[in-house]
């Protein structure tokens, strides 16, 4: 008979994981995997690379848990920052900016016809990821955190280390830039 492990809320899980409870960390993994998966996938644009980066994110989180201090924000915010650093290292290694631009030129034609109707499927998601990949680092982050993950300005400001007013301005600029990319692809 398999033992049933009962876990409490997220703060308690985090404390248990800090103390070395692997099952508590596993529970946190299951709860935050979708958010980190979307974040990394839309930033990287490749499924395999994204999965590797996701595993590295959680592995680094497990190693750095003893130094984690909960200050009232969700645990996933801390994971976002770890993932962000790994993605930056990934981009520096891969130098995929040129590749993303080339793919975007081809995919924008397809995106033009399907953008407003169907974006949930994996194929459209891939195209969206590639379109987002054409933005700057900060614009990508704000688009994903604000529109995809629906985080508040307070949480976003902590992740990006910016003020809430700056995050608002960055959000508008990122949305306009993304719309401009799609419009240029159409035109």
């Amino acid at each position, binding site marked *: 008979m398999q033992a049933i492990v009962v876990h409490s809320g997220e703060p308690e899980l985090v404390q248990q994981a800090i103390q*070395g409870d*692997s099952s508590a*960390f*596993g529970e946190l*993994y*299951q709860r935050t*995997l*979708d958010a980190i*998966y*979307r974040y990394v*996938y*839309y930033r990287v644009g490749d499924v395999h690379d994204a*999965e590797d980066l*996701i*595993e590295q994110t*959680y*592995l680094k989180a*497990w*190693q*750095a*848990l*003893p*130094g984690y*201090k909960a200050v009232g924000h969700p645990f996933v915010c801390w994971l976002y920052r770890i993932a962000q650093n790994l993605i930056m290292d990934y981009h520096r290694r891969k130098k995929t900016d040129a590749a993303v631009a080339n793919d975007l030129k081809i995919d924008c034609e397809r995106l033009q016809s399907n*953008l*407003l109707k169907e*974006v*949930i499927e*994996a194929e459209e*998601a891939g195209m*969206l990821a590639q379109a987002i990949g054409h933005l700057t680092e900060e614009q990508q982050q704000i*688009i994903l955190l*604000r*529109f*995809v*993950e*629906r985080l508040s300005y307070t949480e976003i400001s902590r992740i990006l280390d910016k*003020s809430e007013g700056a995050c*608002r*301005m960055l*959000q*508008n*600029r990122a*949305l*306009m830039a*993304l*719309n*401009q990319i*799609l*419009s*240029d692809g*159409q*035109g």
Partner: protein
Amino acid sequence: MIMVTSSSVFDPILDRCIASLLEQGKPVEACLLDFPEHKDALEPLLRLAFALQTAGSLQAPADFRMSSASRMNNLIAGVPRRESPIQNRWQRLVRSRWAMLGRAIQRVPANPRFSWVYVTILLVLMLSLTSWGIVNAADQSLPGDALYPVKLRVEGVQLFISTTPVENSRLQIKFTQERFIEVVSLAEQQRAANFSNAIQGYTHQLTATMATLADEQYLPQVDRADLSRVLLDDLTDNEFRLNALLLSIPEKYPLPADFRTAVEEALALIQSSCEQARIWSGLPPANPQSSSPSILSPLNTAQATTHPAQTKSPSPTSTPVPLTPVPLQAARTPSPKSETSDPNVMFTDWPSEWPPLEETLIPAPQWTEVNMPWPTQIALPTAWPTDLMPLPTIIQEYWPTDLPPVEIPDESTPPAWPPDPDEPPDWPSEDWPSE
């Protein structure tokens, strides 16, 4: 191609519509109805925002979720965790406070509105440190130095902020002594150019101090007496040191022309201040002889007392008269020739009219023969005196009279000793009185 131009008016509208769309779930059409004048610019952006939020439904594939979980368990078991460097609770607390301060400091420069705060704080700290350094340096300055006016200003501020008359008077006395120390320091450093100014500053400060103490309405009598004693001690020391300075300075460095006059005026002021201070403190007036001798003035002479050498002999019935020192010949006091055109020389010629030393010696006392006849022989008595008082007769009456006369043995013939030592001697039993 739809061109969207951002503006200070459009950005708040767009942000408001996005907030309504994401947080309240408001449809895009409803947001467009709120701002019809911006419909053309808002619609593509809001539709894109709506499309983006639907992308949030993307989830990790189930196979990836399961496979990655097992891989994670294996990795966690094999990879050691980073131990927290903070083991002590106190260390955590301190580090957390420093971390908060560090984050606060890091964030402020990003906001240019608060940079002036740090600049202002830095300027205030720099001004405080600079002022403190200048005041400390000015405290050791002397007349003629660049920071000497700062020193006087600081003393003026101290007098201004003094709260009680006693405190003000104490500061005045302190500054008087400070002016004298400056005079001595200038002399030791051989700075003749500022010497006259220093002497003048001392006399001015002493005059001000005396005026403060003399104000009966300002200072109570009890406090005036106490402060006068303190001032008297300082002035007594100042007078002595100033006189000693006058003797040592000519050999050390040249003097200004008005140096001597200024010093003599200062000495006169000191002496008059001492007398007044004695009156205030209730002390008796100083004995002219007991006061600190003025080296420049002639030596005082005293009336000579009767010399014991005038008497021929000391009477045994009277105690010898103690000797008193013979006074010097006052008329022979030399006066130095101070008339010279060279201000750098004090004496042109050492006086040579001193009396010879032999005349100043105190003559030894001369004792004469005593005329008192001491007895040379004492006659011893040859016979017992007969005029002594007789013995009391009462004793003679109780002396037994029936005792046999005592036979005085003849020493020429020894008594007969029994030949037998074992035989007891014959006792005169027949003459023994019977009971």
